[in-house]
């Protein structure tokens, strides 16, 4: 067994070490009890029955005591297991979630959510099974094997050796089965994943499929994948069938050998009749521990892989965290400065931003305009440190934002994204995200400003659940709620990434009127794709090729910067190779 990774789980097991010891002790006790019963049987047959001696009732009482004792010990073990194993699982899951929350956005962009989820569910279940079952039985079954074999050898050396010999092919088959079955079921899992992708896309793309009448094509694609999966599953079925057949065969052959040899021994008076019966009973007791040894090894191996996968997350350093001595900026005036800011996603990778210099005065609103993939969204995400600058610095009121605590930075800076994230929770919960203490009056004011009063008219008002698991809202409604969320905390600095792209023209005008009042007192950076959004700003900064190439008023830039016209004016002919199409999104 590769134990390398498996011991990393030790700190989580340590709080339950007393329970683990009790579990082990009761498992061992139960083992002794259950293996003593055949010896009592032997005593009954050899004593009271064959030789008509007395003492039957005490022996039967002993068997009863041992039997009930086994039951009690089993109960104790499993009862404790319920607490300890689920405790280990829950503790790791809590820590994993806490860790994941501290990891930066770049980490989450790299990892698919399915992979993280499988760590938090399937992998942790494997660990629970290992801690509660595998670990205990690994010890207990090894103990059983050694103990029973010792008893068997004591009863009869030659027959005992037959038993040991029979264990060898079972273990070999078990090991081989484990290996083959592992790769077969891996293939089945992969193909299941492929099939799931087809299913998901057929569900999400149902309108397109219907619009083009492509049911037959998609159905055929699904059918062929499902058939491939079926034949892979049959490989696994065949492996299992063969394995279980072997498991059934070997003990029977060994039993035949024992009966033959035992019969001989009894007739030679080397062994008693009761001894043979006890031998056979004990031998049958061995079948399960030997069989399950393979399974337990597999559990240990799977748990070890699961632990490796989980610790991969634990071992990831949090790139964005409070520096030692970070200051908690209590009051904030709202002066935002970009000083020679550069950014690239990987070391030596393409520079998304280079040498960005920009100063936003307290209360000023600056619009950021640029073609697709010019780095606008990246620039915004640097302000609340969802990513860190790779060159230069960003300062608020003269403090490098990396010297502020994350909590205070994010208290002063609020963001609304173009793709608004609503969670499967009540509207209220979604709104008070950054301001849990907000009063109803404040919530109403924010909803008013964002033209999101519709929230009051949802079936359960602000208690209505929205998001994936709740009521579905239109893109425009979601954007307006996200905007309300951003302004609710009364932040000093507001960062808005094209916050109204999905809102219709009429509503947009109303939201902008309300926003304009709000922005008089707030420092704001707004990514804009349309002149109407630009109108909110006091000043426009034009981003091209990762740099700010011009700043000024909308009309100034329209008349002096051709690139700006290409991006924002409705009536120009596009230049030959518009930058929007050069780079595909990362």
């Amino acid at each position, binding site marked *: 067994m590769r134990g390398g990774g498996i011991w990393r789980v030790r700190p989580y097991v340590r709080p339950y070490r007393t329970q683990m010891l009790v579990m082990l002790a009761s498992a061992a006790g139960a083992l002794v009890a259950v293996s003593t019963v055949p010896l009592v049987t032997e005593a009954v047959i050899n004593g009271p029955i064959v030789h008509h001696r007395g003492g039957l009732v005490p022996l039967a009482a002993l068997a009863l005591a041992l039997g009930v004792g086994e039951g009690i010990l089993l109960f104790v073990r499993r009862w404790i297991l319920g607490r300890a194993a*689920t405790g280990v699982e829950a503790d790791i899951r809590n820590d994993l979630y806490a860790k994941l929350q501290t990891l930066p956005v770049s980490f989450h962009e790299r990892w698919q959510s399915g992979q993280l989820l499988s760590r938090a569910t399937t992998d942790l279940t494997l660990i629970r099974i290992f801690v509660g079952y595998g670990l205990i039985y690994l010890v207990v079954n090894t103990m059983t094997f050694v103990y029973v074999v010792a008893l068997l050898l004591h009863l009869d050396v030659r027959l005992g050796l037959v038993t040991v010999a029979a264990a060898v092919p079972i273990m070999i088959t078990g090991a081989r089965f484990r290996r083959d079955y592992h790769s077969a079921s891996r293939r089945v899992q992969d193909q299941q994943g492929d099939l799931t992708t087809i299913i998901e896309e057929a569900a999400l793309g149902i309108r397109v499929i219907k619009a083009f009448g492509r049911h037959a094509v998609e159905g055929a694609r699904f059918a062929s994948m499902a058939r491939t999966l079926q034949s892979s599953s049959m490989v696994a079925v065949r492996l299992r069938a063969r394995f279980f057949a072997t498991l059934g065969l070997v003990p029977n052959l060994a039993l035949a050998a024992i009966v033959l040899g035992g019969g001989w021994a009894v007739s030679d008076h080397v062994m008693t009749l009761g001894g043979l019966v006890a031998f056979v009973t004990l031998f049958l007791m061995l079948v399960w521990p030997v069989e399950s040894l393979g399974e337990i090894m597999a559990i240990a191996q799977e748990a070890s892989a699961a632990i490796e996968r989980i610790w991969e997350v634990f071992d990831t350093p949090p790139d964005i965290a409070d520096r030692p001595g970070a200051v908690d900026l209590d009051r904030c005036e709202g002066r935002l400065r970009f000083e020679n800011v550069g950014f690239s996603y990987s070391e030596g990778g393409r520079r998304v931003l280079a040498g960005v210099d920009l100063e936003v005065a307290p209360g000023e609103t600056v619009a950021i305009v640029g073609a697709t993939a010019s780095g606008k969204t990246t620039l915004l995400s640097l302000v609340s440190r969802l990513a860190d600058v790779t060159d230069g610095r960003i300062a608020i009121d003269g403090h490098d934002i990396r010297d502020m605590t994350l909590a205070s930075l994010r208290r002063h800076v609020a963001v609304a994204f173009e793709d608004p994230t609503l969670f499967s929770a009540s509207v209220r919960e979604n709104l008070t995200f950054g301001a849990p203490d907000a009063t109803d009056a404040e919530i109403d004011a924010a909803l008013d400003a964002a033209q999101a009063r519709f929230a009051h008219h949802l079936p359960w008002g602000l208690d209505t659940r929205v998001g994936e*698991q709740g009521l579905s809202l239109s*893109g425009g409604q979601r954007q307006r709620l996200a905007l309300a969320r951003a302004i609710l905390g009364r932040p000093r600095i507001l960062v808005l990434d094209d916050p109204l792209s999905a809102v219709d023209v009429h509503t947009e005008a109303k939201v902008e009127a309300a926003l304009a009042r709000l922005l008089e007192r707030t420092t704001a950076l707004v990514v804009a794709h349309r002149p109407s959004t630009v109108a909110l700003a006091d000043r426009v900064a034009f981003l091209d090729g990762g740099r700010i190439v011009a700043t000024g008023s909308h009309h100034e830039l329209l008349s002096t910067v051709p690139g700006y016209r290409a991006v924002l004016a409705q009536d120009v002919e596009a230049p030959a190779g518009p930058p929007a199409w050069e780079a595909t999104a990362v």
Partner: protein
Amino acid sequence: MSVDLATRWRGVAAEDAEVITAPVNAMLRGRSRRLLSSLMRPHVRALLGATALIVGFDIASMAGPLMVQQAIDRGIPALTRHHDYWPLGLTVLGLVLAGAVQASTDYGFTYVTGRVGQDVLLDLRQRVFDHFQYLSIAFHERYTSGRVTSRLTSDVEAISDLLMDGLQVLAWAALTILTVAGILVWSDPVLAGVVFVAAPFVAVLARWFRRESVKAYRATRETIALVIVHFVESLGGIRAVQAFRREPRNQEIFAALNDAYRGATQRSIRLVAVFGPGVKAMGNATLAGVLLVGAIRVEHGRITVGVLAAFILYLRRFLDPILDLSQFYTLFQAAAAALEKLSGVLEEEPTVPEPTPGSATLLTSAQGRLDFDDVTFGYRDHPVLHHIDLHIPAGQTVALVGETGAGKTTLARLMSRFYDPTSGSVRLDGTDLRSIPRDVLRRHVVMVTQESFLFSRSVADNIRFGRPGATDEEVRRAATAVGAHQFILSMPGGYAASVGKRGSRLSAGQRQLISFARAFLADPEVLILDEATASLDIPSERLVQRALLTLLRDRTAVIIAHRLTTVEIADRVIVVSDGRVVEDGPPPELLSRPSRYRQLHQAWADSLV
């Protein structure tokens, strides 16, 4: 406390209010049974074969202790007294034979049930998949894609688990319990009586366990579902979480949900902790009783030592299946719940039915003339369109304009028969859409929506979706026609490049161009564009605009747009308000007089400065 926390922040949603009453429950069960029997019917012979195999297996595995008994009572005495090897030799041979039969029937049984399980699974998957595809858009609007996916994955797998593992356990356990009971009675009725004293106690325990484990199972499923939703959503939206310092609150919620799940798991483990050892202890007590009574009976010469030994060996086999049955019950519950949901889906009827073969019109070629005759439509009780009369001649480009909720999208959806009108009729070239088979209609009428959904396949595959079987050259021509050729070539791999997960490697404008190329390749007589340019930035919109000119040429086109740029290329504007057509005419004419269109146009023009 955890319950309170788990409910309050989540808010309220419609499905929470569903309460299942007794008659509904009976209906659900009948529905599940019908589905199950239709799935199993083709496999009756295989299942009969499997039954024969398991009976063979059972007989062979029962032979072991009998042979041991024979060896003790006959073989060994014969050898000891008469030096006769034969009786012992024969029993040993019998053991070997039994082992061989046991192994081969075991193999056969596992294989056959596995085969049946896999076949049923394939059958079920295809039925459910095809049915989802067959159901109307109205269904998919209330049934989220997440639910479709879980029907086709976890629910189908629950049934597969039952068929593959559960049936085997059930057949084996039931058969073992019956045969062992038979053998026990046959070998010594009095000793068997001792065993059966324990039966009512075990039955009571099993009944309690079954009832409690139903609840425990449900609790685990429900609590883990909440853990998963919170986990996926909050980490999927990590930008918002971190930007708004939501981590502590999330951790608090997660810890509570996680603890609820832990509690539920602990409870189900503890149920087994009572049940398993309980059965075991009762069995052991029975064994002690058998030993006592058996010894007395041997002493009195009523039974032999061999019988007693065999009896003890059989007794062990009597108890294990009872424990296995409880494992089967868990699988059974999961499968029953899954079956209930799946049968529900399969009994859904499309709200837009196919024409019967007799009444179907196989419109082989179409001109593209669309007529709405007195069309009224509403979603449930909520009326959306009132008595619409609208006639669009072949080849015309029509723009539908109006405020959100005016009914534009509904009009478009009626044209492509995503819905049927409540009254009145929609006709293509004079033929009612309801009498045109689905696949024929889709050849002539195609709708492109705002979302421009792309599949996680190559660029070429996505374009070819418009006309499967199109050559590479045709795909290229379609891309060139809408102006997508250049950026496709600039991607590494060109047309063979993957678009990433649902087009994530492309910008919104690029995705829209690909979806235009797809529509261009399909070459329908009628093309409907619903908000196709809404979320694009201006340079992208300009490109798309140019592509539109090519795309719309020589066909009937209906365009819905908020941004009126798109509308300017139309021959005719129709202003919709409150489910009625309020203005209808060429754009210059509508602009020349005081009209709603002029107001909308003015508001839009203002937003551009």
